[in-house]
């Protein structure tokens, strides 16, 4: 639908350029530059209040930065219309809730909003996109269930399905595993990893973060490290940013690396 800009394969699909954001005079994001590569899963980690959510909202264009800009496919985000952005970029915010008595299908169908004009009815391709999104998150058989009957994990799956119904190239997720039990966390992370789009995921659990292709570490609104998980999560960074020390253990079941944390005794 939108004219495809000329992009080379290695150009970042989404790029933060020297972003700065102040809320009520307080700097929340400072001088932050971050390239997101096509089809990678980029984990965004950092302690509470380090600006992960704000960065995701800036990347999604939901809030405008005070300084710098976001490039989507090489084009400044603020030069595109809201609808054009929403066709390429979807945001799954932290535990968005509603009091409305909607069904799973209604919630997912909202994802078609950027593709439809005010009075245009749903066409076959829209229902197909909804169906595919429901299939992708494994909620197709619950399509007529009421929103309020769903568990936290199921609601999060429906939010992801709504984002997928936007048919975006980039998916931004803000702590998708918050408040979920361990089974739901693991299956949700497996689902997110399997999605064939570019993903930027804010995460709390550093062991979950190990499964990302790259990690961006934030501290007090700044990007302090960027790279492959095993390179980034070294002892110095864990001590400086997260104020923990860690032992890397190997799970004998499958040989994967696991971190076990202890609070820094000195502070």
């Amino acid at each position, binding site marked *: 639908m939108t004219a495809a800009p000329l992009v080379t394969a290695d150009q970042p699909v989404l790029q933060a350029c020297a972003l700065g954001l102040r809320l009520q005079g307080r700097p929340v994001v400072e001088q932050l530059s971050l390239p997101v590569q096509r089809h990678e899963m980029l984990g965004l980690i950092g302690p509470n209040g380090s600006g992960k959510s704000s960065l995701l909202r800036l990347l999604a264009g939901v809030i405008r930065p005070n300084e710098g800009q976001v490039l989507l496919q090489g084009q400044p985000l603020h030069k595109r219309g809201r609808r054009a952005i*929403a066709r390429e970029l979807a945001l799954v*915010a932290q535990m*968005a809730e509603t*009091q409305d*008595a909607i069904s799973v299908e*209604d919630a997912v169908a*909202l994802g078609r909003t950027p593709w439809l004009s*005010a009075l245009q009815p*749903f066409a076959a391709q829209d*229902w197909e996109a909804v169906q595919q999104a429901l299939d992708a998150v494994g909620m197709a058989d619950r399509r007529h269930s009421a929103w309020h009957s769903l568990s936290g994990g199921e609601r999060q799956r429906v939010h992801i399905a709504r984002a997928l119904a936007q048919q975006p190239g980039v998916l931004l997720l803000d702590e998708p595993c918050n408040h979920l039990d361990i089974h739901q966390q693991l299956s949700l992370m497996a689902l997110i990893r399997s999605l064939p789009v570019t993903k930027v995921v804010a995460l709390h659990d550093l062991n979950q973060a190990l499964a990302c292709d790259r990690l961006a570490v934030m501290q007090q609104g700044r990007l302090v490290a960027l790279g492959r998980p095993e390179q980034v999560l070294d002892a110095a960074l864990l001590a400086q940013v997260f104020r923990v020390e860690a032992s890397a253990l190997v799970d004998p079941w499958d040989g994967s690396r696991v971190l076990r944390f202890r609070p820094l005794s000195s502070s």
Partner: protein
Amino acid sequence: MMEATASARPSALRRPLHGAAWCLGAALALLLSVALGIAIGETALSPSLVLQVLANKLAGAHYAIDPISQGIVWNYRLPRALVAASCGAGLAVSGVILQSLLRNALAEPYLLGISAGASTGAVLVTVVGIGAGAISMTVGAFFGALCAFALVALLAHAAGSGGLRNSGQIVLAGIAGSQLFNALTSLIITKSGSAEQARGIMFWLLGSLSGVRWPDTVLTACIAITGLLLCLLHTRALDAFTFGSESAAALGVPVRRVQLVLLLAAALMTAVMVSIVGAIGFVGLVIPHAARMLVGVSHRRLVPASAMMGAVFLIAADVLSRTLIRGQVLPIGVITALVGAPVFAVILLQSQRRRG
């Protein structure tokens, strides 16, 4: 196209028929209630007489009818029924807009103090003479409504987290706003108004359809239809607010513009209705919730259904207000409040349960 969607979606085939049936039913109900609104009253008129008058006036027929009956139908009851229908529709649609945009099940022009602000604005223009005739009562009511809404929104925002979305805060702020503006209205009328105007205070506080004429009908109908059309153009955007304004923005909705246009529309509808019939409460609360039970939460169906049900409801409330006590006309706001207050309580209990 129908066949293509039907396989992917079994209910898709049923829905258009469903919709058409609802539209037809709603239109019939509206016509029937207008007819009944005309026929029922102090002087009961037969439906055939009502139809004959309408045929004389609208279709140029020449039935011989006693001019008094003709006058009652054409000059009193028909405009009254039409104003009731317009006000009911306008207030119900305002309620839908406020509930959707503020993400608050209890949002409604009357409870948020918007109606009270509109009363104060209208009274300032008519009684005190602000604007020296240059601005009409309706314009005064519009600015009063905007002031009240701004005040209540600021108060709710300042009162803490959740701001406009927090049911408790905004209803409390609305109570404060209503009380303040109702007190101002009383003060202005008592201080500046004549004895007759002082008696008219009941009109502003409780609402009344007594004395509406054709020009009022034209104004209220135009505003209600404009507001309804504006809202119908934004049904998809209103749906996108289901998970809040940030989620709507992420879905590509121009949030600020939609909020501005629709909140102004709600304020305008409320202001016009209040300047013509006074502050009628709870219509914007009861009707959208009843409509949701019938047609669901999708605004494509909810908005027209609310408008229709609001129209029918207020005509019925007007008939009741004229007939409940023989020889006396109750303020219509008394009827709507008698229905609305219990509904308010039910919604409060329900939303508490959902959160818990």
